[in-house]
């Protein structure tokens, strides 16, 4: 009988299948009380440190700004061989994103130079819809206070900028089945 009882909830799910076509959700009655506090618009977006490989930053340790850059499109041979560009690579080259003169910075199509802590602006140039959702807290992830200060993960915390498809993960352990439980 114990097993039967434990299975009850699951059977509940089975017997009343979800009617997905029924997407009408009534939420308009969630009204704000006069004078209630609302979430402040954030002036500055706080992010955790960019996920650089240890030792690679500052890039200017090797990329001396005094030495002219080889701007030719070419396979990397003496450094950065651990990745190949798989991000619209037919149309893209390193220096579309990385600044030619100051290697510790990125640049936008407009020429504006930005910090790595603002790389979302770079991504946002081509992925406007995702960027909008990210700023609204819907794409990507925030942590901190739901009613106050938040930290945003950068796009590159989840997407490798050079091969951005999200990588599959190993799942956490399978739950114990009710029937496997010790008596």
């Amino acid at each position, binding site marked *: *009988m114990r097993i039967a009882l434990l299975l009850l909830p699951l059977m509940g799910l089975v017997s*009343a299948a979800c009617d997905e076509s*029924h997407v009408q959700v009534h939420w308009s009655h969630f009204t704000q009380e006069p004078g209630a506090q609302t979430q402040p618009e954030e002036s500055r977006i706080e992010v955790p440190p960019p996920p650089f490989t240890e030792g690679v930053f500052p890039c200017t340790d090797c990329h001396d700004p005094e030495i002219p850059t080889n701007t030719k499109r070419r396979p990397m041979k003496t450094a950065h061989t651990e990745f190949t560009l798989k991000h619209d690579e037919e149309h893209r080259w390193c220096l579309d994103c990385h600044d030619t003169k100051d290697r510790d910075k990125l640049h936008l199509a407009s020429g504006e130079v930005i910090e790595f802590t603002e790389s979302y602006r770079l991504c946002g140039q081509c992925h406007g819809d995702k960027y909008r959702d990210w700023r609204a807290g*819907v794409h990507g992830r925030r942590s901190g206070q*739901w009613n106050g200060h938040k930290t945003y993960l950068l796009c590159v915390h*989840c997407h490798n900028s050079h091969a951005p498809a999200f990588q599959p993960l190993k799942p956490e352990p399978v739950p114990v089945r009710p029937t496997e439980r010790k008596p």
Partner: protein
Amino acid sequence: MTRSCNGPTTAGVPAGACTGCAGSQPPVHAAQPLPSRREFLCVAAGCAAAATTAGCTDLTHTGWFRERFRDLGADEKAGILADLAKEHSERFHKPVTVGAEPPLPGVEFGYALDISRCIGCRRCVYACVEENNQSRDPQVHWIRVLEMEKDKGIDFAHANAYYDAEKVPRPGHFYLPVQCQQCQNPPCVKSCPVGATWQEPDGIIVVDYDWCIGCRCCMSACPYGARHFNFAEPEIPAEQMNPKTHYLGNRPRMKGVVEKCTFCIQRVRNGRYPACVEVCPVGARKFGNLRDPNSEIRYILEHKRVFVLKTELNTRPRFFYFYGV
């Protein structure tokens, strides 16, 4: 005593399956006085015994014969919390706090889960266990991640909670995590014969574990399988026990009581996000104040394709699912 639920049970021994109390019983309205646990016990057991004991007990704070926690005065509450904190600190060999943070004014919590992102990695399941002090053995999980086939769509009949894989997502599948839906019209609350579970003003459905009699009516009333019973003494390794607790949330439970997700009441009433939101590696879990037009939860309701589970039951969940793409 008109309620049709099977009688109370002691320490986790079921008195029988409580079938259909949700359906067969008229809804209990908030205004209608609930029987006190003492009355309930007395009627159910027909008992001179309970009455006698009650008559001569010196009432301890956590004793059986005090009032429901929510009906107590501030002093009595403080006493109970202090006693519990002491008891748990001794048991787990570290300073444990038991708070009772009240609902925040103007706040009604809502949750939204992006099923176009979820990859079924179960990080949320175990983050929840750690945050909320669920029993490790026997295993209690407040979140169940169901794997479904893309071809079949949302189909609970063929859902699998026990999928195993080297890597997720598995091709051709999508994932639907299910936990307490914090219904605006909660069948579990109506089914409780002793008023041990209720809806707070911020929408969180809570359980007073000291008041729960373990009859499990709420479990059969819940259409989402979101309530869980401690059929044995819960076991939490002392070093893994989360010492920041709330009376109505993650404080350690005892054998014979029902427990459930509270949106991490101990975190959210202090402004923090629930643990599952912060751990999700794909950012599929969203949380906020439904009454705040600037919140991310309202953005989702206004801009995304949103649905809830089992609309036909009119439970009106505050837990929404959406397509973020």
